């Protein structure tokens, strides 16, 4: 009763998720490079490349549906199909954020006094790439421990994001002109996009953890419906 074609389908699904992940890594890498160097050609290649990522995401979604409809997956196969769908959604979002960064890279003119900000964006980008690579490694290796550590690797990014926003909102005398320019808006948005990329990876890590342990947020998934008071009323 071994189910060869089903298991081949699962292997192919896993393979295509990893292929999508490598495209997304490249997109983030190139978009942040374009942001830091102002290379419009590079930025355009990221924008054009997003179609491939979206196509793969749709293929993965279709494959998850087809295998669930036809093969009645259970146990680790069921968890993989559930997680594949969510991981591909996270990856697709990250691809979109890379496109957003590439668009900013095309618009952002160099300006006086930008250096400290560019330095922070560079550090943020490098850290975001680290989170992304580790997140994908956690999925590829089914490493729940690494997946749960992503939040920790993400922390410096949140700190740098706060620092950039703080400096733009409350600029020193020397920064006043930069902070009030259109350029400042681009920097704020770019840093936000980078921060969102890392957050998507952290959430993806939660899915990887479920894939390995069968637990959602540290608890068995089949939890009771929470009794939620309307905290927003009155």
């Amino acid at each position, binding site marked *: *009763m*071994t*189910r060869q074609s*089903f*298991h081949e389908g699962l292997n192919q699904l896993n393979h295509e998720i990893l292929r999508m992940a490598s495209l997304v890594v490249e997109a983030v890498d190139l978009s942040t490079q374009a942001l830091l160097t102002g290379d419009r050609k590079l930025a355009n290649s990221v924008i054009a490349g997003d179609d491939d990522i979206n196509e793969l995401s749709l293929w993965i979604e279709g494959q998850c549906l087809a295998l669930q409809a036809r093969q*009645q*997956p*259970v*146990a*680790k*196969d*069921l*968890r993989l199909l559930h997680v594949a769908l969510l991981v591909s959604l996270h990856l697709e979002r990250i691809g979109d954020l890379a496109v957003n960064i590439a668009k900013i890279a095309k618009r952002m003119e160099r300006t006086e006094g930008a250096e400290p900000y560019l330095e922070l964006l560079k550090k943020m980008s490098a850290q975001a790439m680290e989170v992304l690579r580790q997140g994908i490694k956690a999925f590829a290796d089914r490493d729940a421990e690494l997946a749960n550590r992503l939040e920790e690797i993400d922390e410096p990014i949140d700190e740098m994001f706060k620092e950039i926003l703080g400096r733009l909102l409350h600029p020193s005398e020397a920064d006043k002109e930069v902070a009030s320019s259109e350029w400042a808006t681009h920097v704020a948005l770019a840093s936000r996009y980078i921060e969102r990329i890392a957050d998507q990876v952290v959430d993806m890590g939660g899915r990887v953890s479920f894939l390995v*342990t*069968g*637990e959602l947020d540290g608890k*068995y*998934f*089949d939890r009771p419906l929470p009794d939620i008071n309307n905290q927003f009323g009155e």
Partner: protein
Amino acid sequence: MAGCITTSNLSAFFGDVRAIEGVNIEIPANKITALIGPSGCGKSTFLRCLNRMHELVPGARSTGEVVWDGKDIYAPDMDATEVRRGIGMVFQKPNPFPLMSIADNVSAGLRLAGMTRNKAFISETVERSLKMAALWDEVKNKLDKPGGSLSGGQQQRLCIARALAVEPDIILMDEPCSALDPASTQKIEDTMEQLKQKYTIVIVTHNMQQAGRVSDFTGFMLTQETGEPGRLVEYGPTSKIFTMPDRKETENYITGRFG
């Protein structure tokens, strides 16, 4: 609540051959418990030990304990017929008495058990049992027609009604749907869902999807090596077994990596 069964170190033999070994399980009342596992792992033998039907096979015997609501069903003072009345069974192949009327099929157990107080009681019981087995609407106008005139799915529900008529606590089902088409299978599954309000159900099934659909708890049985007895490998909530089983053997079996 009435209707729980606990086995301790239950083993069953056919002559010298040990078919199952050391089964410890607590089957809760008013739940559906499914037993799955490859052919020959001893699921049916285990089921038949739960109402002393195993011993009806010449040379067959069992050791260990089966406790039904605090009573050891193998105790010397325990009447096997009483056990089988309280713990009914439905088999793989629908086995109504083919020439006997539908109504008489349902009340056959009552008459055998000497529970024939009066006509009104019998006709009430027939109606109630057929309703619980979700067959009443289909047969209420032809209760005097022979049981053999019904379709396979209806015959199986007739057998369920017959088992219910003697008011058991527990219903054992051995592959109740494997001879039925999908629509009849769906009816039986719906019926089981209704029945568990009142009864405890233990079902043996080859169909893992069915176990996933209908049961609250699932036990996985396995014969590790050819010629060895079957053992209970894992037992737990069905949603757990089908998403995150603890044992590698369970996972390999339910995901189709062996079996």
